[in-house]
């Protein structure tokens, strides 16, 4: 049992918390989305784009992708820290992950508000 006093450096606490809160939000969104898909079954382009251009749906979906980006960053960073030992290579891959996630963010916003 480590009784660490969390002051000063934050020992990854913020990342850990962000990972969990984003997980809860995404879980709620996914369950609601799946329920909506099974219940409404939007038949064609009209119904689908009408559903996705609702104000609340745009905001919820954008928040979903924002959560995904935070969550994927913490998770991918954990994976890279565990398996990639050379510092330079790991740093390069981390920058790559950040760039990919930045593209995801911009793309999601562009899709939702076209």
């Amino acid at each position, binding site marked *: 049992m480590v009784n660490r006093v969390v002051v000063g450096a934050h020992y990854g606490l913020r990342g850990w918390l962000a990972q*969990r809160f984003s*997980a*809860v939000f995404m*879980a709620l969104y*996914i369950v609601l989305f*799946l329920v909506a*898909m*099974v219940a409404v079954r939007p038949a*064609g*382009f*009209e119904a*689908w*784009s009408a559903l*996705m251009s609702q104000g609340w749906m745009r905001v919820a979906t954008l928040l979903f992708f924002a959560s*995904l980006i935070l969550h*994927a960053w913490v*998770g*991918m960073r954990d*994976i890279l820290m565990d398996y990639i030992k050379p510092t330079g290579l790991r740093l390069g891959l981390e920058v790559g*992950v950040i760039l*990919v996630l930045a593209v*995801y963010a911009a*793309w*999601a916003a562009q*899709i939702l508000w*076209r």
Partner: protein
Amino acid sequence: MPDVTVKRKRPLWYNLNLFNLPVPAVVSILHRGSGALLFVLTFVLLYFLDRSLASPDAFEGVRQALSHPFMKLVQLGLLWALLHHLLAGIRYLLLDVHVGVDLASARASSYIVLAVSLALTLVLGGVLLW
């Protein structure tokens, strides 16, 4: 009187292949693997979301592409990755708040995660894809 120092110097050699992978470890590594997979495939998800909302013609293109039998199998695999990651994640959130941390329940919940994610994949896949 046996010489203890000689005994201490003996090299330790563990054959790691003899260790088995307990169920919680299987759930854990699948959680990691499915997470990495979902990170990469968010690109594909965004691509299809983009096309499906671009125009009625593009929507029809997405519908055709996704209804190909091979693509349906891919989607089934992805659905499993998502559901496994989701259910294993819920298990970790419960472990975080000290629910089910003893060995017996940790093992039982691991089996539940594996079984329910497979079952839900088949049910949801059947309803949504076929």
